[in-house]
């Protein structure tokens, strides 16, 4: 179990230090600073073992969060906790920065007391936490409310309190995906996968029961086999194969295991319903075609063409192509048809930005790079990377339905206003050149 949790700033000064178990000494704080933050070689592994003590760390902007233990704990559990901790902190005071951490000193200790007990993770649901840990200090509560807190903390449904009422029952559903790609210069896909999240925001009264349906291949195949085969081949094409997925704690896993249906009582407000990953039949929104020609020892000509590969009615946004330049670049001339391009010396790359681009279009940039002759160290030619945002899910995921039942209160599925949005972003989207 987690023995202690430390938060450092970028210089390695300790901002927060909370020790949960006696086996973690005071010197553990320094050990991590000396061996990881101030290490001569940058430490890449998120898990570091120093003197039989394990340190698990994550870095958020310039802040280091480190969990410490002397026991053999489940490392993924610890990281899941650290991420959750980041989410909770972000929900309370926004961006995690040194300034914010210092300003919310008391609050963080209060949170740490609540979400970890003797090193065991407890309830880390932001919504639930907000009911009894408030930034303004604890308001005096009525007997009723206090009783409700007790029943909620100890009860079965820890993530939702009873008696919520909205005049308008509304529900927002976002499918957020990030698509990762590595492509050879000839256009061969070397590796590609999509990791996606279904994020919801619900404002529903009472204790509603929800059911979420998507074009999961297994479900659709089962339906086709079981009943009518009216949709036939069409649905087979439309369905997607999910490699693996994880759910929010509100989802009834037993039901998912037996019927593969996703049913849950949603928390109030923001939450992440599920995470998933797919590797098959990915729609690659952009294709990058690089052309690099070395002219003698002092010149390099680069031409990059990007092609958008989706419905022409859709618009991609925030497109950024990053073309790495050799380390001995002494000057760059750029010509591009669309957008703006700039040589950024501090990053050793040409950055080409396009605000908007419709589907089935193409655009190109050509660059002339002057080089300073140096002793013949070959340039490693790092891949060209790309960033973008598209209004569809590159995995092909579609939301088929989201039904809401509330037997006690008298509103039905039709009364709920539902909003669905798809956003596909680039993860590590690289093409070798």
């Amino acid at each position, binding site marked *: 179990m987690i023995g202690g949790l430390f938060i450092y700033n970028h210089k390695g000064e300790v901002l927060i230090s909370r020790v949960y178990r006696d086996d973690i000494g005071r010197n553990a704080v320094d050990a991590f600073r000396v061996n990881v933050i101030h290490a001569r070689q*940058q430490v890449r592994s998120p898990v570091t073992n120093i003197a039989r003590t394990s340190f698990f760390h994550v870095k958020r902007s*310039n802040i280091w969060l480190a969990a410490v233990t002397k026991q053999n704990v489940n490392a993924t559990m610890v990281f899941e906790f650290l991420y959750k901790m980041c989410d909770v902190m972000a929900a309370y005071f926004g961006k995690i920065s040194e300034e914010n951490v210092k300003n919310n000193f008391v609050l963080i200790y209060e949170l740490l007391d609540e979400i970890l007990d003797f090193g065991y993770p407890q309830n880390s649901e932001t919504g639930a936490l907000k009911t009894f840990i408030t930034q303004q200090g604890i308001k005096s509560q009525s007997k009723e409310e206090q009783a409700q807190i007790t029943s909620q903390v100890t009860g079965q449904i820890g993530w939702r309190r009873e008696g919520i009422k909205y005049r308008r029952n509304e529900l927002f559903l976002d499918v957020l995906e990030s698509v990762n790609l590595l492509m050879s210069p000839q256009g061969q896909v070397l590796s590609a996968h999509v990791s996606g999240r279904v994020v919801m925001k619900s404002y529903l009264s009472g204790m509603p029961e929800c059911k979420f349906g998507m074009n999961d291949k297994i479900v659709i195949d089962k339906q086709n086999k079981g009943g009518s085969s009216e949709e036939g081949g069409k649905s087979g094409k439309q369905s997607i194969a999910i490699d693996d997925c994880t759910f929010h704690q509100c989802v009834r896993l037993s039901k998912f295991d037996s019927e593969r249906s996703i049913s849950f009582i949603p928390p109030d407000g923001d939450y992440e319903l599920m995470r998933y990953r797919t590797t098959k039949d990915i729609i690659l929104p952009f294709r990058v075609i690089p052309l690099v020609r070395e002219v003698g020892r002092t010149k390099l000509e680069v031409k990059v063409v990007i092609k958008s590969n989706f419905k022409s009615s859709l618009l991609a946004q925030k497109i950024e192509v990053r073309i790495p330049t050799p*380390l001995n670049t*002494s000057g760059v001339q750029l010509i591009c048809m669309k957008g703006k391009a700039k040589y950024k*010396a*501090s*990053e*050793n790359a040409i950055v080409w930005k396009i605000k908007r681009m419709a589907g089935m279009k193409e655009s190109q940039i050509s660059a002339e790079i002057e080089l*300073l002759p140096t002793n013949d160290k070959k340039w490693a030619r790092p891949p060209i990377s790309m960033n973008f945002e598209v209004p569809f899910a590159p995995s092909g995921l579609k939301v088929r339905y989201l039904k809401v039942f509330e037997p006690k209160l008298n509103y039905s599925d039709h009364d709920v206003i539902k909003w669905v949005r798809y956003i596909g972003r680039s993860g590590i989207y690289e093409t070798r050149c």
Partner: protein
Amino acid sequence: MPAVSKGDGMRGLAVFISDIRNCKSKEAEIKRINKELANIRSKFKGDKALDGYSKKKYVCKLLFIFLLGHDIDFGHMEAVNLLSSNKYTEKQIGYLFISVLVNSNSDLIRLINNGIKNDLASRNPTFMNLALHCIANVGSREMAEAFASQIPSILVAGDTMDSVKQSAALCLLRLNRMCPDLVPMGEWTARVVHLLNDQHLGVVTAATSLITNLAQKSPDDFKTAVALSVARLSRIVTSAAIDLQDYTYYFVAAPWLSVKLLRLLQCYPPPEDAALRSRLTECLETILNKAQEPPKSKKVQHSNAKNAILFEAISLIILYDSEPTLLVRACNQLGQFLQHRETNLRYLALESMCTLASSEFSHEAVKTHIDTVINALKTERDVSVRQRAVDLLYAMCDRSNAKQIVAEMLSYLETADYSIREEIVLKVAILAEKYAVDYTWYVDTILNLIRMAGDHVSEEVWYRVIQIVINRDEVQGYAAKTVFEVGRKLIPYQLKACGGYILGEFGNLIAGDSRSSPLVQFNLLHSKFHLCSVPTRALLLSAYIKFINLFPEIKTTIQDVLRSDSQLRNADVELQQRAVEYLRLSSIASTDILATVLEEMPPFPERESSILAKLKKKKGPGGHLPDIDDARRNVNGSTESSENAEASKKGSAHPFTDLLNVSSPPPATNSLLVDVFSDISKPAALEVCEENFSRFVCKNNGVIYEDQLLQIGLKSEYRQNLGRIYVFYGNKTSTQFVCFSSSVTSQDTLTPPQLNVHSKTVDPVIEGGAQVQQIINIECLSDFTDAPVLDISFRYGGTLQNIGVKLPVMLNKFFQPTEMTSQDFFQRWKQLGAPQQEVQKIFKAQHPMDTEVTKAKIIGFGAALLEGVDPNPTNFVGAGVIHTKSTQVGCLLRLEPNPQAEMYRLTLRTSRESVSQRLCDLLSEQF
């Protein structure tokens, strides 16, 4: 040095550095640096002419970036351009960049050398200094090649400034350390010596360092330095401190120079001239007197400087080893330090006393401090000081105080630091043996030692006990009784093994006592049998079979033990074999045969103690002395302390005996039986072909072996102590060889490897008529006699063929020729005059005496043929250096043909006896 004016401060650089310092994170820093690098690259692009100031600024920035740990691969050219500037700051930055960043194999080195050459010739002292500093800082071979001949002339030129002389001396020192072969000796050396008389103390200090270093290379050239340095030393020592102004350090007059002069004097034997000698003695006395004076300052620097001179003076006194009064005074002075507050002083005092103890004059004086030393051993907090105390006790031990010292060391052993326990154990074991008057005391001590130190006792210690017990009848009974007594306790395995052995041999001597009847003895040994390691158990089994012989009454008990499954079916082959064989032997052999087979062991031949060898091996020759001391001592071997000299002579003269001692463990009882079998199981030793061996002494390529199946050709190349042999195996038949394998074995497996041989594997199949190649890499670790053997085996038409070929790897292959003048040659020839360094052989010519052929042979042998060196033109003279990994041995050879008698006289002089002998043998076979 011109002051840096305000205007020269580089604002851009300052801004850049402060930017980097203000970076919040590593990433930000890298971004800033990338930006700056891109900026500098665009500035250096070449189409713009930069002024000196901006060039300097950008080179400075690059240097700063490099020192932050980033790679810099441009800007070298601009730095080289800065060298030609005539502004001091620009030149300085250029040199700084070059000495930090330019590596020796850069293609710019010629340009740099040119710049340096210009500066050296410029007569501007500041520029000359910069250039000299750069040469010294880079200190590469290329630099040495380019400038080693020029610097001496700068050093001794009359009109050179003092500061330049100082730099030149230090630069030359550095080059001499890096590549001694490139610094030419010549007439300038005599003038360097006179720098000791220079007015400027800085020059003198630098020159002293240089001379000390050069004197180790050719002591004769600098003999005159002795008189000068004595004079200089006495002037410093007797001067009032204020006379030297800048060179007075915390009221001590020129401490660094004094120390260096004393070091220089240590390179030479005591001066012959009586006046000089008395002057030196006077100096040393003054230094000793000064140590007694009350300190002029409480500052630690004052006492440090004073003590530094004192310790150097004491080591000179010890080295001379001829002035009893001085030695005793030094000893008393050190005695005072033994109780000093300062740990470092106590350490140094103990260390110096170790060497003092070996001098006959001061041995007694050292002995008076025994109580202090023992006290130090007990109370000292620093382990390294305790270690020195142990060393000193070891050094001061003699027959009169052996018992006390051994007892103290034993009692210290219990609390000693783990790192030094093994050494202490060895020392106790040696002292106990060396000074034992009464062998019962010896046996007690050693058994006690083994009991206490347990794991730190090496095999040699108990082997040695057994050797001694077996060789001395009078202690056998006592030893048996003692091991029996201590055997009752829970004891370390060495004691168990030792006990098993001794009881097996001499158990009968104590069997009369009912408390130690045979059965009791046996039970004692067997009680912890299962806890012992395999070798110990094997030894105990041998002891049991000996018991069967000694005490027939317990034969059945022992046979039962041998018969048990845990023995007869033991997983360990050795134990199983012993159990089976001993059981059979005891049941079928008659008592007579048993008595003969299992007779008491004959006395061991007297040899040098294997423990001593082990201790030496552990320490290495003079292992605790710094390098310079080592070299210094070698220069005048005559003054070496008597014991050391004796020890090292023994070490080099009988390199094998010690090891033989170790590697043939005394428990040879079992080998009576085992050896018979092991001989049979070994493949019959194959005959090694060496007919062509001697032909390869003077050449590197050719055919070494040929029969109707196989032809083996060689191509070899050698460089310093490394060699590579390409072996070509040619299949002369039309059918293929299969299972072809070849490996290189060394003939003497007992000794530590003198050659490091590494062979690549070859293709197991050689087609008919085809040839394959194998590469063998050889590293010469130390001088050697026996050549490695190439073992080849393959199947040809179903029969296994085995061929052994002696590889022509001889000592002379690691020869590097050295050219020298006649004067040099005879000077060195005389230096190698010690009788064991020369080997001479007179032999009859086997081939016609042709001058040209002989010349070719000497060159082929590897030595440089020196023409016009010998006054007699018919004689041949050669010189060279044998490179081994550990040492380099200089060799001089002289071959005097006598055409009338058809005889040759070959004389070889090298600094090592074994080398001389081997080379002489090799070469004499060639004519």
